[in-house]
C-alpha cells in the first residue's frame, strides 16, 4: 500500500509524524525506532537563543490527559544546527524544524538561518505554545498577528512552512485562513489546550507555572473537530494532532480531513506507536477498499438530512 502524502509542496513517504516536543531531537528514540521510517520528525521548538525552560514540576497527569509546562527549553539554533541536526540527517529522517520566536524579528532570523541549511524538509511555525511569557501563543490568538508571522517567515524561506495553531481560540477557521493568507503551505492542528490542575492535599498547583498545556486522548474530540471545521471551510492541507493513541484515533483525523498526523503524548507512552499505526493504517485502507491515503482524507459519510442541521 502506498502511504505517500503531500502537504502543499512537502512530500512525505507516509503520513505518520512525531510531534514537536515529544521526540527531543531524535537521539533518545533512535535506539527504539528507525527514524527513516517515520513520515517526518518534528523537532523540539527551536529558538534563536538557548532557553532554559520553566521551573519544575513541569508535568501533571489529568484524566486521559497530560499537562506540561516545559516552556520551550531548547539548545538554541546554533547548537541545534551544529550538534543535533547532523544526527537527524545521518538517520535519514525527514526533518521538520519547529521554530519559535518572541518577536517577528526572531521568526525572521530563524527562517533565514534555516533557509540556508541543507537536510531540512520544512519548517513548522509555532505560534501556539501556552508555556512562555512572550511570543508563542500571543501571536496565534489573533488572525492579524498570525498572518504577520507567516508573512515574515515566508519572506525569508523557500522551504515548505506549516503553521502550528492553537486550539485556545474562538474561531479556528479565521486563524487558519490568516495563516494560509500569510503564506503557509499547510497547517498543524492542534497544539495544547490551556489547562491546570491542583493538588488538593497541599493546595498547590501541580505545575510550578500553574497553567500549562493539555495534551493526550482527553483533547482528541476538540482536535478532530478543529480539523473538520477547517477542512470543510478551507481547502488547505492539514496535519492533525491531539490525543492520537491508536490507529483508530489516527483514522479519525484522516476522515475528518487531515492528510497526515503527528503523535505527541502517545509516543511518550508507547515509543513504537508511529510504526504500529503506519502498519495498521495500510490494513485499514485495504479493508475499506480504499486505494491510498488521499481517498481517505475527508471521506466521512454523513446523511444529507442530518448534515443540513449542523
Amino acid at each position, binding site marked *: 500500500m502506498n502511504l505517500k502524502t503531500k502537504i502543499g509542496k512537502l512530500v512525505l513517504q507516509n503520513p505518520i509524524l512525531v510531534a514537536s*516536543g*515529544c*521526540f*527531543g531531537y531524535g*537521539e*533518545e*528514540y533512535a*535506539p*527504539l525506532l528507525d527514524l527513516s521510517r517515520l513520515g517526518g520528525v518534528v523537532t*523540539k521548538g527551536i529558538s534563536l537563543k538557548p532557553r*532554559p*525552560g520553566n*521551573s*519544575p*514540576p*513541569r*508535568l*501533571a*497527569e489529568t*484524566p*486521559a*490527559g*497530560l499537562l*506540561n509546562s*516545559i516552556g520551550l*527549553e531548547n539548545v538554541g539554533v546554533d547548537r541545534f544546527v551544529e550538534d543535533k541536526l547532523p544526527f537527524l540527517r545521518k538517520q535519514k529522517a525527514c526533518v521538520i524544524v519547529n521554530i519559535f520566536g518572541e518577536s517577528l524579528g526572531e521568526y525572521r532570523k530563524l527562517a533565514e538561518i534555516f533557509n540556508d541549511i541543507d537536510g531540512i524538509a520544512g519548517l513548522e511555525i509555532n505560534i501556539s505554545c501556552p508555556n512562555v511569557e512572550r511570543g508563542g501563543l500571543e501571536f496565534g490568538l489573533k488572525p492579524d498577528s498570525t498572518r504577520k508571522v507567516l508573512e515574515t517567515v515566508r519572506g525569508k524561506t523557500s522551504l515548505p512552512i506549516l503553521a502550528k495553531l492553537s486550539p485556545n481560540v474562538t474561531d479556528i477557521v479565521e486563524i487558519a485562513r490568516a495563516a494560509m493568507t500569510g503564506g503557509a503551505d499547510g497547517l498543524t492542528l492542534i497544539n495544547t489546550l490551556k489547562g491546570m490542575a491542583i493538588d488538593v492535599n497541599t493546595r498547590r498547583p501541580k505545575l510550578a507555572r500553574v497553567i500549562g498545556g493539555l495534551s*493526550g*486522548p482527553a483533547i482528541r474530540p476538540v482536535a478532530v473537530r478543529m480539523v473538520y471545521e477547517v477542512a470543510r471551510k478551507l481547502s488547505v492541507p492539514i496535519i492533525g494532532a491531539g490525543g492520537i*493513541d491508536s490507529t483508530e484515533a489516527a483514522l479519525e483525523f484522516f476522515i475528518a480531513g487531515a492528510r497526515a498526523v503527528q503523535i505527541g*503524548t502517545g*509516543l*511518550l*507512552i*508507547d*515509543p*513504537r506507536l508511529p510504526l504500529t499505526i503506519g502498519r495498521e493504517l495500510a490494513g485499514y485502507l485495504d479493508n475499506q477498499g480504499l486505494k491510498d491515503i488521499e481517498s481517505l482524507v475527508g471521506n466521512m459519510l454523513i446523511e444529507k438530512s442530518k448534515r443540513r442541521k449542523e
Partner: protein
Amino acid sequence: MVMQLSRCPISKNQVIAPGYFLMEIESPEIAGEAEPGQFVMIKTRDGLEPLLRRPLSLHRISSTSIELLYQVIGKGTQSLSRTRPGEFLDLLGPLGKPFPLPKSNSGSTLLVAGGMGIAPILALAEKIAKRSKVLPAPRLRQAGKGQRSRAPLKIHLLYGAKNKANLVRIKEFQKLGVEVKTVTEDGSAGRKGLATNLLRESLVSSPGQISAVYACGPRPMLKSVARIMKNKKIPLYLSLEEMMACGMGACLGCSVRAKGKEIHYLRVCQDGPVFETGEIVL
C-alpha cells in the same frame, strides 16, 4: 547501555509489608544491561488509567530477571499490585545513569535511605559487596600481611522510615554483611528519628575513611544529607525522583535545576536519577 521496550512476564508479586510489594519480572534483556541506580518505566495497565508509564527503580538485578520494590500510592501502583505471576507487563528500560561505585575498595561506604528510598539501595549494596569480594582491598599501612587481614570495604545502611512496618528488606542487607542501623519517625522500631540523625552520628563514629555516601529518599531528606555532607570532601551521590513522562530524555518534563548562576536544568531521567551533589540545586 541499550534500553529495551518489551512485554515481560511477571514471576512474583507479593506483599512484603502493608502496602509494600516485591515484584520479580523475567527479562534477561533488561537484566543483562541493568546497573544499580537505573530504573524502568512500566505501563501498569493497558488503556488510559493511568495514562503515563510509572518509573520504578531496579531493586535487585539477577542474570535473567529484575526485582522491583514498590509502595501502593495511587492508580498506577494499585494496578501493579493486582497483577499476577504469569501476566505480562510492558517495560521500558533500563533507563538513567547508574550509581558510580566507590573509588576506593576500603574504608566505609554509607548508604542513606529514607522510606521507599530503600528500593535502589539494595541493588547498589549487592554490587558493592560483590566487587569488594572480587577486588582485593588496597594495602594497609602495615604492609606484608596476608590478604585475609586486609580491612575490606565496610557497607553501612542508615535507614529511616515512618514506622516499624515500613522498615523492609533488612535481612537482605544483613546477608550481604552490611551493617544496618534503623530509625523510625514514630519510634516503633529502633530509635525515634530520621535517617539523617544516623548519618550525623556515623560521620563522627565511623572508624576508617568514608569512601562515598549514597542517598535515596524524599527531597527534604536529600537536602538535609547534602547540607550535612557539605565541604566534607566525600563523594555524595543522590538519587532523585521527579514526575516523568517519557523517562528517556525526550520530553524535558523531569527537570532539576543544575548548579550554576545561569538557570539551566538537567533531566532526572537521563542525566540522573543519580547525581553528584555538586551538579544540582535541590
